[in-house]
């Protein structure tokens, strides 16, 4: 494998020092002179009409500077998610939200907001707002919400009662005939839970509106450029008069702020406009839970058929997801569920039919994996059931059917690379797959089991969504490099990996490169950080920009050194003629005489030489990324306590084909973090609602996050099946760690206990009940 100077090395993150010393600035830390504090009044009802709203008392409270409701804010319809800026025609984005409306559709929906000189006064003012509600009928289950008698949550639903946007249908081959030709068919319906991103920094925004009408918003968004477009639409202000930026750090994302940070940005802007002062809004943890997007729960049905020899022949996948009260990403998420679910195995006859359904719960939107975990827990469960039915080893069955390079599939881009077979082989070896079936002594109270789950994902969202990147590389007058890219760093290491790519292409040390990112004013348009795309797609633009700058440098250096540019190479900021002895060359010594014959020149000398002749090297990268599938196989070993029902995950081996790890320690960290979120998805995490539509798990204490004491042994294995379309062979990795984990764990629980669960999380209570005779619930 080719060795690089900067790429492929686990260099220290460029943001590490700021973050380790407490000097890193996040939106929640940001302040401005004269800044006010905004607070939001939220609906206590799951569905109601606002009959009257009286803000006079609140306005009179000393220290209150602005009060906003549906009456004095723009009546401009939007979607808090970035989907409204990147849905590809002929599909139309679903727009169904206002900053405030006169109907509230879930507990936590925005009713009014106040800006005051302190948070306490703002809170006090909220209590003084009098709202008269007329309660409306509610529905919380997606299947119920489709019934004719269900309340209408949003009226314009062309595809069926309470169904937002389009139903996604993906047909491949002849499904009916396919099933007729199968020897074994298994069909099961699964129930997926609603879970939350629980990024550590809650939603936050600081908005400033200048006397010239220009708007600046510092916020936690994962997509500053699309977010600017949304704000422009809401307030009827040109894009060019709005600046959206991260300050520059964001305390995690996991999808929750692709687009707006819930409604933090527009509410802060509306209040700032009215008050004439900057306004800061920071969601409380409870607000973050109840009033920012969750993952979609809902129902997923898998019908899988195979020939006697184990060849998969037909797959019917169906999904009805709980979209909550507003659309957000409710059309794209079922799309990815289907597209990914159909692309892991080579199956000639397939069909997907999926959509979301509006209910009176917190809106569901993007969360790491974006529909894919909802596909793969059911699919990988059914694959294991089929293996048992056929009397085959689950690994053998998978290896027989997994997608190979060049296989036809439903995705509109080719499968150029797959290291899945290698992932399966290496992962199996590491977990000790051969121990399976010999793990337990007769009569043991704690039963061990091993399970597997595999999958794929994407490396950006093209051609499903608008997806393009720009980057600019500017060689400074002293030969150092400035790089500008509009993507944020939400913790995934973008602000280190992108400079690594630029440094490698330009032949300079990493320290020579400095990056400006996550700011619409100082960077060209970039769609943002989502869909595991940042390193792959923004990285492709960075490589293109760096190559452009490099070409200009070498052309200029060719004239300077009087050789053809093709003969030049750059290393450690020194441009030299290849194949020539450099000893005795004056470059970099500062003692070159004019007229001396030169074999090399430093970037510093060259850039200054150019500067004195009115020239700067500026490289531009403008790309539309291709797309590429990352692959992964997870192996879980669990221990089930048959007396309590507790499922303890002992070890997870996560083998990932990442194409090429630009910074291996960062890649491992992405996988480990994704795995633990996947373990939580499988075993503990869930948001349930009471009969009135109130979340029962709306705090960190109630929402069962795993802590350091619960962490299983996690082993990340990196497979590098070079992806020709990616920068230095890389592909997406951010989301994949979460995708196959629940399937692997549920299969391990089956291996341990013989109990097949059709829903997660596998809580102590649920498993205990199943063990004590009720058996697992079916759906």
């Amino acid at each position, binding site marked *: 494998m080719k060795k690089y100077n900067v790429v492929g090395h686990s260099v220290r993150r460029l*943001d590490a020092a700021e973050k380790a010393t407490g*000097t890193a600035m*996040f939106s929640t830390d940001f302040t401005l002179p004269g800044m006010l504090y905004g607070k939001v009044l939220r609906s206590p009802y799951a569905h109601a009409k606002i009959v009257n709203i009286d803000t006079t008392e609140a306005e009179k409270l000393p220290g209150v500077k602005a009060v906003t409701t549906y009456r004095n804010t723009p009546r401009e319809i939007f979607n808090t998610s970035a989907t409204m800026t990147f849905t590809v025609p002929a599909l139309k984005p679903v727009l169904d939200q206002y900053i405030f409306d006169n109907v509230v559709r879930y507990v936590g929906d925005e009713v009014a907001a106040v800006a005051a000189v302190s948070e306490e006064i703002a809170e006090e003012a909220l209590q003084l707002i009098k709202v008269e509600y007329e309660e409306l009928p509610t529905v919380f289950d997606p299947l119920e919400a489709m019934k004719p008698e269900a309340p209408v949550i949003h009226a314009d639903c062309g595809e069926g009662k309470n169904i937002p946007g389009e139903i996604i249908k993906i047909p491949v081959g002849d499904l009916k005939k396919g099933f007729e030709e199968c020897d074994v068919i298994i069909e099961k319906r699964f129930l997926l839970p609603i879970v939350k991103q629980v990024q*550590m920094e809650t939603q936050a925004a600081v908005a400033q509106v200048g006397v010239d009408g220009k708007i600046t918003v510092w916020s936690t968004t994962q997509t500053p450029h699309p977010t600017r477009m949304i704000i422009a639409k809401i307030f009827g202000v040109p894009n060019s008069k709005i600046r959206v930026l991260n300050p520059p750090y964001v305390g995690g994302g996991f999808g929750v702020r692709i687009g707006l940070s819930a409604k933090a940005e527009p509410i802060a802007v509306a209040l700032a406009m009215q008050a004439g002062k900057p306004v800061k809004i920071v969601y409380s943890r409870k607000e973050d839970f109840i009033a920012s997007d969750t993952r979609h729960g809902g129902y997923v049905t898998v019908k899988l058929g195979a020939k006697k020899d184990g060849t998969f022949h037909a797959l019917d996948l169906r999904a009805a997801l709980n979209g909550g009260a507003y659309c957000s990403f409710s059309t794209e998420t079922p799309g990815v569920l289907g597209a990914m679910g159909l692309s892991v195995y080579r199956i000639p006859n397939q069909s997907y039919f999926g959509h979301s359904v509006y209910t009176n719960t917190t809106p569901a939107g993007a969360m790491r994996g974006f529909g894919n975990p909802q596909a793969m827990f059911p699919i990988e469960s059914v694959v294991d059931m089929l293996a048992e039915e056929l009397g085959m080893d689950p690994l053998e069955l998978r290896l027989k059917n997994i997608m190979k390079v060049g296989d036809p599939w439903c995705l509109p881009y080719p499968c150029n690379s797959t290291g899945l077979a290698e992932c399966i082989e290496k992962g199996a070896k590491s977990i000790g797959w051969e121990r399976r079936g010999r793990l337990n002594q007769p009569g043991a109270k704690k039963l061990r089991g091993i399970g597997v789950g595999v999958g794929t994902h994407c490396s950006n969202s093209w051609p499903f969504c608008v997806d393009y990147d720009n980057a600019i590389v500017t060689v400074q007058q002293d030969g150092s490099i400035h790089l500008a890219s509009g993507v944020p760093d939400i913790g995934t290491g973008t602000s280190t990996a992108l400079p690594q790519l630029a440094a490698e292409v330009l032949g300079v040390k990493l320290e020579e490169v400095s990056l400006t990112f996550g700011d619409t004013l100082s960077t060209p348009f970039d769609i943002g950080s989502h869909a595991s795309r940042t390193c792959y797609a923004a990285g492709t633009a960075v490589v293109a920009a760096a190559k452009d700058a490099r070409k200009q440098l070498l052309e200029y250096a060719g004239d300077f050194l009087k050789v053809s540019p093709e003969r030049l190479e750059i290393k450690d900021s020194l441009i030299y003629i290849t194949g020539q002895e450099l000893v005795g060359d004056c470059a970099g010594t500062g003692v070159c005489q004019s007229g001396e014959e030169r074999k090399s020149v430093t970037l510093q000398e060259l850039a200054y030489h150019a500067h004195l002749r009115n020239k700067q090297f500026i490289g531009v990268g403008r790309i539309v990324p291709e797309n590429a599938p990352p692959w992964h196989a997870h192996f879980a070993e669990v221990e089930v306590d048959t007396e309590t029902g507790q499922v303890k995950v002992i070890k997870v081996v996560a083998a990932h084909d990442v194409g090429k790890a630009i910074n291996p320690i960062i890649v491992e960290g992405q996988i*480990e973090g994704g795995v633990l979120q996947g373990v939580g998805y499988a075993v503990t995490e869930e948001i349930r609602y009471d009969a009135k539509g109130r979340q029962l798990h709306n705090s960190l204490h109630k929402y069962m996050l795993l802590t*350091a004491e619960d962490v299983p042994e*996690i082993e990340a294995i990196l497979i590098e099946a070079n992806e020709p379309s990616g920068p230095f062979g890389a592909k997406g990795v951010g989301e994949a760690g979460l995708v196959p984990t629940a399937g692997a764990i549920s299969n391990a629980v089956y291996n341990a206990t013989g109990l097949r669960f059709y829903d997660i999380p596998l809580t102590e209570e649920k498993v205990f009940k199943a063990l004590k005779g009720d058996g697992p619930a079916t759906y």
Partner: protein
Amino acid sequence: MSAKILTFTLNGETTKVMVEPSDMLVDVLRDKLNLIGVKKGCGQGECGACTVIMNGEAVTSCIVPAMKAEGAVVETVEGIGGPGKYHPLQESFMDLGAIQCGFCTPGMIMSAKALLDQNEQPTREEIREAISGNICRCTGYVKIEEAVSAAAKQIKEGK
């Protein structure tokens, strides 16, 4: 009760600041003393982001009334090291990939420091217990645990 001047030792310096009875230590540190390294992730003692060391113990400063800090010795991440003289925990967090979004990092480092100040050779279980009140949603804790044990070794060898 009314506002009063709180006097305490903050990162080695005698500090005086006006506080209200309802003020929590986290808000005084962040808003009045501009120590933004003290993060706030929940305000309810449930995430650990606001962890500081008070009289040698790691505390979640969002549930400590500021007035309780009268006469106390308080350390925040800003006070434990910086360029040229990083604390071994800061070094190991930076080198071993224990930092992603960084929002949990200061609190995590302070919980770990409170442990290492008292226990030079913590076991894996003791490390896990010490940081069990600090939520990190990014890392899966794997590299954080490694970083804490590496720092412990470093400190011991440095002596």
